């Protein structure tokens, strides 16, 4: 489990454009670097990210080794119904982590 900071408005009006911000603590080790002993440091990145809002895909992204550590993603969605925004991402070890944020439509 890595640390994640999610920023989604708790409340919104129907039809409102909301900004979603996600910050993930991850080394995003590129696989190109070597350690002090000269041995290559194995690649270790989050390679895919998916955000859904009440099961509808908002954003699907592939990430590559050139992304800096602690990746930050920011994107927009239209607020429609009260429900859950789900964030799922997978790293090179095949581990999937899922985080959720609730949103209420007034």
């Amino acid at each position: 489990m890595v640390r994640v900071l999610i920023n989604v408005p708790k409340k919104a009006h129907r039809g409102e454009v909301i900004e979603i911000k996600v910050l993930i603590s991850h080394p995003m080790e590129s696989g190109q670097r070597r350690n002090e002993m000269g041995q290559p440091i194995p690649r270790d990145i989050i390679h895919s990210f998916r955000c859904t809002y009440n099961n509808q895909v908002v954003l699907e992204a592939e990430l590559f080794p050139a992304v800096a550590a602690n990746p930050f993603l920011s994107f927009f969605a239209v607020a429609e119904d009260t429900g859950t925004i789900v964030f799922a991402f997978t790293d090179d070890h095949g581990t999937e982590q899922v985080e959720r944020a609730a949103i209420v439509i007034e």
Partner: protein
Amino acid sequence: MMRVAACALMAAMGVPVAPISAQAAPPPRSGYTDASPATRAMQDDDSVNPAFLWVQQGETLWSTARDGGTSCAGCHGAPASMQGVAARYPAFDAARGRPVTLAQRIELCRTEHQGEERLDQDSETLLSLTALLGLQSRGMPVSVQQDGPMQPFHDEGARLYATQFGQLNLSCHQCHDELAGQTLAGSLIPQGHANGYPLYRLEWQSLGSLYRRIRNCLTGVRATPFAPDAPELIAIEIYLAGRGRGLVVETPAVRP
């Protein structure tokens, strides 16, 4: 020029040098002001500032007790109870007869009150807790005591600040006062203030302590850096706080 030469000579002879800030120094200018608009924007928005990943971890550590022990919250209440504390550290500890840094203070609570193992200054745990506590003082003026029992430590810090180090034979003062505002290998030389630490440095891709920063400056002039908890570093930290009087706490800041 003469003055610099004289200072350098006195430093070389081990004669204490009066605090250089007594020269007609410009008002302190935070590294924030010298950073690019993009870097400043990162610091301005807590949801974008990666340092908040550590603050979040600090909140978890603050309220977690190990094996039926007492958490920080158990003795201190909410983190907000620490408002203003970070702004006045390092602070003089009368029982120990010396100043302790915020990280050392936390270490004392961890080892004496919680029975935990000692940790490295740059451990994720101490970085997270100092970031959380620093945040409670954000916007407050840096108010580290410089006189009374702190005077000798301030003076030692001033002496070290003016001392030339390393194969490049440069002092903190030469870079951060005389050359501040100019560039070195493409990066701007800031005035070298300590009001944002621990901070997220883009080059480190991580949160880091003031002592890590100073270590970088010393290896930059090809000097052997001080040991992690060396009294020299504490003296420099105290002096830097006094030299930056007028600045407010920015923790957790973002720098290039």
